[in-house]
C-alpha cells in the first residue's frame, strides 16, 4: 500500500432519523499519525466516528480505509478490517470481568496473549483488577480498560472518543502517555474536547462545526492561531 492516507472520509452525510446531522464531513488520516477531531459539543464529532464504523451509516459520501471502500458494509465487517473503537461512554461490559472484557475483543486465538505485555505496560492497574467485574471499576479504570480492549486485536486504526473526559489530572497524564506510546505503531483518530490534551497529542486536526468539516491542517499552525481556536472552539 503506497497510499499515504490510511483513512479517507470524503463529504459524508449522515441522518439520525429525520435529522440531517452530518452535512459534509471530510477527514483524512495519514498513516502513522494522530489526527484530532475538534469542535464544540454536538458539532457531530462522535457521529463522524460512528459513521466511519457504520454504526450510523452515512447516506452519501465515500469512506476509504486501507485502500478499500467500506461505506455500506456492516459494522462488524468494517471493524474486522482493523479498526478499534473506544466510545465516549467507554461501553465496558459490566457483567464481564476485566479479563473477559479483553478476551471478547480477540479476533483470532492468541490475540490477547500477544498483546498482554503491551497492555499491562501501558495500564499496570488493570493487572491487579483482572478478575473484577466491569461494573466495579472506577471511571478512570473503565477508560483504561476501554482503550486496552481496542488494543487486543491487531488494529491499524484506533477511533478514540473523549479519552480524557471525566478523568483526574494524573490519569489524563497516564492516558496521554499511553496514546503517545501507541501512535508509534498505529494510527489514531481522536475526538477530544480538551484542547490542551489534543494539541499535545495530535499532529494534525480537523474542525467540525454544525455537522460540517470547516477547517483542517497541521496542529502546529493551529496552536499559533488563537483567532481560529476562539472562533470554533470557544476559549482556548
Amino acid at each position, binding site marked *: 500500500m503506497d497510499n499515504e492516507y490510511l483513512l479517507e472520509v470524503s463529504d459524508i452525510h449522515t441522518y439520525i432519523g429525520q435529522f440531517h446531522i452530518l452535512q459534509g464531513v471530510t477527514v483524512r488520516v495519514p498513516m502513522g499519525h494522530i489526527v484530532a477531531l475538534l469542535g464544540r459539543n454536538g458539532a457531530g464529532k462522535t457521529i463522524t466516528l460512528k459513521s466511519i*464504523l457504520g*454504526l450510523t451509516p452515512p447516506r452519501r459520501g465515500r469512506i476509504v480505509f486501507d485502500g*478499500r*471502500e*467500506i461505506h*455500506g*458494509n*456492516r*459494522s*462488524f*465487517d*468494517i*471493524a*474486522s*478490517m482493523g479498526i478499534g*473503537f473506544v*466510545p465516549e461512554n467507554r*461501553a465496558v*461490559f*459490566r*457483567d*464481564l470481568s476485566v479479563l*473477559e472484557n479483553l*478476551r*471478547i*475483543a480477540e*479476533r483470532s486465538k492468541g490475540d490477547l496473549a500477544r498483546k498482554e505485555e503491551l497492555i499491562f505496560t501501558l495500564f499496570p492497574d488493570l493487572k491487579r483488577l483482572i478478575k473484577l467485574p466491569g461494573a466495579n471499576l472506577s471511571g478512570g479504570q473503565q477508560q483504561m480498560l476501554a482503550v486496552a*480492549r481496542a488494543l487486543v*486485536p491487531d488494529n491499524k486504526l484506533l477511533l478514540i472518543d473523549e479519552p480524557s473526559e471525566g478523568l483526574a489530572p494524573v490519569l489524563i497524564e497516564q492516558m496521554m502517555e499511553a496514546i503517545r506510546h501507541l501512535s508509534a505503531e498505529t494510527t489514531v483518530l481522536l475526538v477530544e474536547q480538551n484542547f490542551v490534551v489534543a494539541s499535545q497529542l495530535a499532529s494534525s486536526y480537523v474542525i467540525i462545526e454544525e455537522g460540517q468539516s470547516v477547517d483542517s491542517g497541521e496542529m502546529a499552525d493551529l496552536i499559533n492561531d488563537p483567532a481560529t481556536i476562539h472562533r470554533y472552539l470557544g476559549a482556548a
Partner: protein
Amino acid sequence: MNDFMVSLRRNRTRIITLAVFVVLFLMAVGGMSTKDWVITTLRGFSTGAVIFLVAAGFSIVLGLMGVLNLAQGTLYMIGAYVGWSVFVRPDTMVDLITPLALIAAGLLAQPLWGRLLDRLVLPHKVARIWPWVAVILGIALLVFTTARAPLAMWDPEAYSDSPIVWVQMFEAGQISARIQPAEWDGIPPLVGLVALVAGGAMISAGQAGHARRHGVASVSADRKRLPWRTIVIVLALITIGLGAHLGNDSLTAFLLNINRNWLFLIAIVAATLTGGGLGALMEATLIRPLYERHTYQIMLTIGVSFVGIELVRALWGRQGFTMPRPPLFAGTGEGCPATSLVGWLQHQCSTMELTIGGEVARIRTYNELVVPLVGLFVLVAVWLLIHRTRLGMIIRAGVQDSEMVEALGINVRQVFTLVFGLGVMIAALGGIISGPSTGLSTQMGETLLLGALVALAVGGLTSYPGAALGAVIVGLVQQFVIKYGQIGIKIPFLEEPLKPTPPLVPASVIILMIIILVVMPQGLLGKKE
C-alpha cells in the same frame, strides 16, 4: 461484615418475600401426609422443569434482543409433535431426510454463486429482475416436487390411519407390519432428486443476485479463495440425501428394530434440532426486519403461534393423543413397581414404590424423576454456556450493549440468530420431554406459555436464574393446588375441608404473579430498573 449488612438491607423485600414463600411451602407441606407432599413436590419440580425449558429461551432472547417471542409455546408444542412422529413413525422421518437434505444443499450453496456472478456482466434491467424470477421459479419447483416426493404418513382424517391408532399399534408392536413404503408420484425419481437440489439452488442464486446488486458483500472476506467450507457442506448434504434415498428401506428397518430407548433418544435429538432450525429460520426471515418495532414483533410472534397451531392441526389432526413412554420407563411386569433405583433400572419399571414416613409412595419414574432431571441438566448446561464459553461472553456483553459488541468485529446478527435458535431449541426439547408424560394436544403450547410468562414475571424478566426459580415456584403452586383439590384444606371453624376447584389451578398462578408484581415489580431476582 458491613457489606453484608448493606446488601441485607438493600435486598430486604427480596428476602422477606422468599421467606414468605418458604413459610407458605412449609404450611402446605404440613397439611399433607409425608408421602403426599413428597410426590406433590416432585410433580411440582416436574411441571416446573418443563415450564423452565420454555421460559429459559424466552428470558435469554428477551434479554439479548429485546424480543418477546410469544410463539415459544407453539414451538414447544411443535417439538413434541415432531418428536412423537420420529418415535412412532421412524419411516416418515427417513422419507423426509432426502428432500430436506437436498433442498438444504441447494439453499446453502449461496457463497458459490458470488464468484460466478462476478464474471457475469448483465444489462441493468436484467440484473434487477432475474433474482426475483429465480426465487419464484425455485419456490414453485420445490412445491411441485415435494408434493410428489415419496412420503409415507399417517392420515388425521381417517380414523384407522390416525395418530391415535398408530399409537395403539406402536404399543402392540405392529408398526413394522403396517408400514407401506411410498413411491415418487408421477415423476421419475432421478428427475425429482435433481429438481429438489435445483429448486434450492435457484432460490440461493436469486438471493446472491440480490445481495450483489445491493452491494452487501463482505469486505473483509477474501474473494479470491474458493469457499471450501460451503463446497464440503453442500456435497455432504447431497450425499446424505442420496444415501437416505437409496438406503430408505434398510434405514427404516434398522430404526424399527433398534431398542426403543435409543429411538426415543433419536426423537429427542430430531425434535431439538428441528426446533433450533425453525427458531433460526424465524429470526432470520421474520424477526430481523422488525428489531426496532416492538409492537410489530409481538403481533408477529402471536401470528406465528396461531399459524403453527393450525399447521399442527392440519398435519396431525385436532384430536390430542398420547405418546408411548420408552421401555426404560414403561415396564409393569415382574419386579415392578421397583423398590429402589437399581430395581427400576433392572426391571425398567414405570413406577417405583418407596416407603416414606411409614407410608408407601408411588413415584412414576418418567414423569417425576426424569423430567425434573432433564430440567436440571439444561439449567446447568445453559449456565455453563453463558458463563464459560465465548458465545456466552458475547451474549452477556450483548445484553448490555450490542452495538459495542458489533464494533469489536463480532457479527452480532449471526449471534442473534444462533441465540434465538438456541432458545427455541430448548423449548422444543421441553416439548418432546413432556410428550410422554402429558400427552400431545394442540392446546399444550398455550397453557405452558402462560406458565412460562408468569414464571418470568415472578423470577425477573431477563434473569436466567430468575426464570428457573420462577418456573419451580409456578410448578409447585400448581401441583399443590391440584393436590389440595383432592384432599381438601382443613380450615379452623369449618366443618368440611375446603377443596380448591380445578379452575383455581391457572388462577392461583395468576394471583401469585399479581402479588409478586405488587411487592416486587422487578421480580424476585430481576434487577431494579
